[in-house]
């Protein structure tokens, strides 16, 4: 019985920590390449992410083979010719922000600046983006962001033959809801 108060304290701590570390396995990453010849859209609904509010960090892990395309051939080319997903299976991002996000009130934080590093196709590059972080009524948190990825910067070569089919800069959209 002597340990009872400390047990309660321990439980309380657990609850606090559980709320501090927000995770999701069902974040969505999609990208769009637009050229006059062909539009290419792909999405991945299986992105893993951790949002640590007290440390103000966010991390994403995107398995490249989980991207789904409209056409099977595009998916094949994406994996085999461009991102070489057997050699580099995941794209990773880790970033920090300055905003204090209050989980107790439903609120939209519209312009959260996230600064971080992206690892993609074996190349590490700084990546800064603006995100919208929403504390929802049901206490879940949504993070949305949009940023361009320059293929050349990550050593992804587009053969001359299909250059007019693939945009040199691809727009990536992230939509994550943490529980």
């Amino acid at each position, binding site marked *: 019985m002597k340990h009872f108060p400390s047990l309660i304290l321990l439980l309380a701590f657990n609850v606090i920590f559980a709320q501090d570390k927000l*995770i*999701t*396995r*069902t974040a*969505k990453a999609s990208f769009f390449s637009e050229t006059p010849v062909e539009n290419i859209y792909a999405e991945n*609904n*299986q992105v*893993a*992410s*951790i949002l640590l509010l007290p440390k103000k960090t966010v*991390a994403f*892990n995107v*398995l*490249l*083979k*989980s991207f*789904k395309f409209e*056409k*099977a*051939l595009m*998916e094949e080319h994406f994996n085999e010719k461009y991102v070489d*997903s*057997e050699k580099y*299976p*995941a794209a990773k991002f880790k970033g920090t922000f300055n905003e204090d996000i209050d989980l107790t009130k439903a609120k939209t934080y519209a312009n959260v600046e996230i600064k971080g590093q992206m690892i993609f196709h074996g190349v590490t590059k700084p990546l800064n983006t603006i995100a919208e972080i929403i504390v929802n009524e049901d206490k879940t948190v949504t993070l949305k962001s949009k940023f361009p990825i320059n293929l050349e910067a990550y050593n992804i070569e587009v053969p001359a033959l299909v250059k007019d089919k693939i945009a040199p800069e691809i727009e990536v959209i992230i939509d994550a*809801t943490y*529980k």
Partner: protein
Amino acid sequence: MKRAIITISVVIIAVICYATYQYNKPQQDVLSSNSDYSFSAIQLIEKFNQDANASTPLFDKIITVSGKISLIEESTNTSILILNDGIKCEIKNNDAQQNLTKGMSVKIKGVFSGYDDMFNEIALVKCVIIE
């Protein structure tokens, strides 16, 4: 001369047909394809624990795995089922809503898409529940 023109036309048409077929090739149908490998969830997790390069031979392979649902995470279009705390399977929501509950034993067929080292989970996409 006439014959040459006909031959060339036939070849050109064949090439166009083949290219069009390739371009419009349908997505892999997991349900009707045979699986390349069959594991219990415990076996598959153990395989990855022992071998850091276990991913390589499995990429794009259709894997059947049987295990116990340890978590269900629902999202707008798809849901994630976690088997035995170590395998995550992405399934379409209409499949997910077949009265699946935590603790249930299921057999799932899906395409291996990699190892997620953020949560240490083996990832399968395009999954269908077969039992």
